[in-house]
């Protein structure tokens, strides 16, 4: 009963000066919430990063930035060092030491990263499609759960890849992709990627294309020259045409790649050693000073990055906690000042028969309510951690 009266008086008092009290609660909430957010955000980012870097024991790529390789090949967030080609995979697959899953990156569709890989990627990740089937033809793709939701694409839907440079005709070709499968949510970068076959990615890069039949073509630019006299008639096929102009079923007859597939570029490869010994052997093989490639352990890389981040975060958290303490003191001072301004009201309560203890309880209840509201605000702020951890990973990866 006493508590009911205390709550009644406290709520009315807080409501009476709601602007001031809302400000105090907000200040309290933000100041308490920020350190919580920082800790929670980093913890979440740490979990996400460790989870992602554990999808493959080893990562193969061209020599260069280790972080570009990890964040490119595992988070699809940056461009890995260039120089790896298909035949280089044999170096890790020789003697059955490991299985390699190739990755080709660097293209986007509706500003979403496209990942070219083999179907082994899904087997190794134990990813079972939510609906549809894995890609089999050039131009087919599997969508991550978030991509499907964000772009509102369903099975059978078609869309075009983004041209990298509209003025560069020899550059990335817009390619019409058709959705053949959709992944379930995995809470990983897979959710935000479009997966397709390696050949599709090479086609986007312009390594595979088709020509129209010069004799029947009506497409501008498809025929660059023709001579005709009494005996002969010659027509010269024109520019390579992006696949976007054809239907999927038309790809096979006139579609081709130039050069050997073994020379086609890769951006990295996830490497799965047969056992620990194989892993050790493989790492040793790529340790040479004149080595053109790097074979790294993503988990150790994540440890190094996270240690660095957490070192900085500890300093920031200390500052944030100190700030929160100061702010809490300021809020407490403001609250005490407001109580002084209400000294007459508190004195009245005693004159009407309230004990000092009961008056203290009334004041305490009001303060507790204010702190509870502040803490609720802090909880709301700290609940942004999942969103922010995603942002941290993006910041670290540079995507």
């Amino acid at each position, binding site marked *: 009963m*006493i508590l009911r009266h205390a709550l*009644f008086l406290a709520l*009315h008092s807080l409501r*009476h*000066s709601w602007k001031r009290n809302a400000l105090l609660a907000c200040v309290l909430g933000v100041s308490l919430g920020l350190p919580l957010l920082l800790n929670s955000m980093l913890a979440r980012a740490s979990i996400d990063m460790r989870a992602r870097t554990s999808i493959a024991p080893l990562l193969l790529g061209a020599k260069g930035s280790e972080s570009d390789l990890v964040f490119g090949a595992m988070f699809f967030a940056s461009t890995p060092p260039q120089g790896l080609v298909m035949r280089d995979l044999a170096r890790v697959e020789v003697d059955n030491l490991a299985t390699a899953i190739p990755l080709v990156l660097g293209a986007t569709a509706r500003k979403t990263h496209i990942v070219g890989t083999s179907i082994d990627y899904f087997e190794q990740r134990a990813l079972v499609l939510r609906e549809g089937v894995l890609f089999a033809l050039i131009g087919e793709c599997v969508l991550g759960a978030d991509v499907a939701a964000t772009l509102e694409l369903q099975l059978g839907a078609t869309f075009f890849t983004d041209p990298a440079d509209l003025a560069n005709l020899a550059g990335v070709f817009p390619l019409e992709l058709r959705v053949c499968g959709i992944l379930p949510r995995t809470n990983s970068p897979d959710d935000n990627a479009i997966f397709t076959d390696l050949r599709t990615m090479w086609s986007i890069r312009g390594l595979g294309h088709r020509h129209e039949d010069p004799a029947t073509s009506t497409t501008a630019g498809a025929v660059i020259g023709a001579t005709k006299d009494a005996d002969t008639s010659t027509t010269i096929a024109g520019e390579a045409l992006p696949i976007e102009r054809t239907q999927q079923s038309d790809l096979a007859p006139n579609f081709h790649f130039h050069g050997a597939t073994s020379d086609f570029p890769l951006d990295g490869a996830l490497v799965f050693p047969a056992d620990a010994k194989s892993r050790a052997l493989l790492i040793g093989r790529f340790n040479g000073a004149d080595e053109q490639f790097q074979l790294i352990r993503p988990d150790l890389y994540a440890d190094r990055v996270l240690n660095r981040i957490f070192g900085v975060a500890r300093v920031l958290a200390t500052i944030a906690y100190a700030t929160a303490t100061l702010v809490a003191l300021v809020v407490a001072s403001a609250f005490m000042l407001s109580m002084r301004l209400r000294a007459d*009201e508190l004195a009245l309560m005693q004159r*009407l*028969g309230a004990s000092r203890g009961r008056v203290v309880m009334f004041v305490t209840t009001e303060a507790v309510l204010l702190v509870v509201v502040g803490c609720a605000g802090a909880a709301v702020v700290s609940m942004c951690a999942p969103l922010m951890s995603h942002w941290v990973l993006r910041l670290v990866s540079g995507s």
Partner: protein
Amino acid sequence: MLETSTIEFRRASGFELRVEPIVLREGESLAVRGPSGSGKSTLLGLLCGELTAARGAISVDGIDLTHASDATRRNFRATRCGQVFQTFELVASLDVLANVLLPFRLHSSLTLNTAATTRAHELLERVGLRGAERRRIHELSHGERQRVAIARALVNQPRLVLADEPTGNLDPALKMVIAQLLLDVTRSVGAALIVATHDERIVPCFDRVIDIGGGA
């Protein structure tokens, strides 16, 4: 109902108060007259148990306030005493009805129930504030605020009502109205009323008058 011997009170500042014996029965009213600083408020403080006399005895309804514990005095103020102040002393964060019912939230001897709420409504009607239950204090005129204070002073069915300059903050036209209202309502509930005032115009309204002329 109220019976005192000669009361003496001293403050550390040197202020001294000496009041001759007072006897007051149910329904009677008493005006305590004197200039500012003469000790009128101090006397009311002694009679409600907020202050303790250095010498003399104060008995209300058989309760010896002079020798009572703090808890007994608080209980007395909450259950048997109603108070009206010059500056109204209403709680700005509460509406009219909640202000009238405030004593029920301050002491466990009083139970806030339907009867108490009904009584609060009746008192508000009697002081002319029917329909104003949900109005905020800042929306009221000074006269209305003092009416709310009078209703609050009587809501706990007190045996003794103490009013300290109840007309001090009111317009001249309102002074008599409020003083008469205070007298009427107090009499109607059978309580004794003591009013401290230096306003000569309202003094004749009361059954008896004592003068306090002393001071520091």
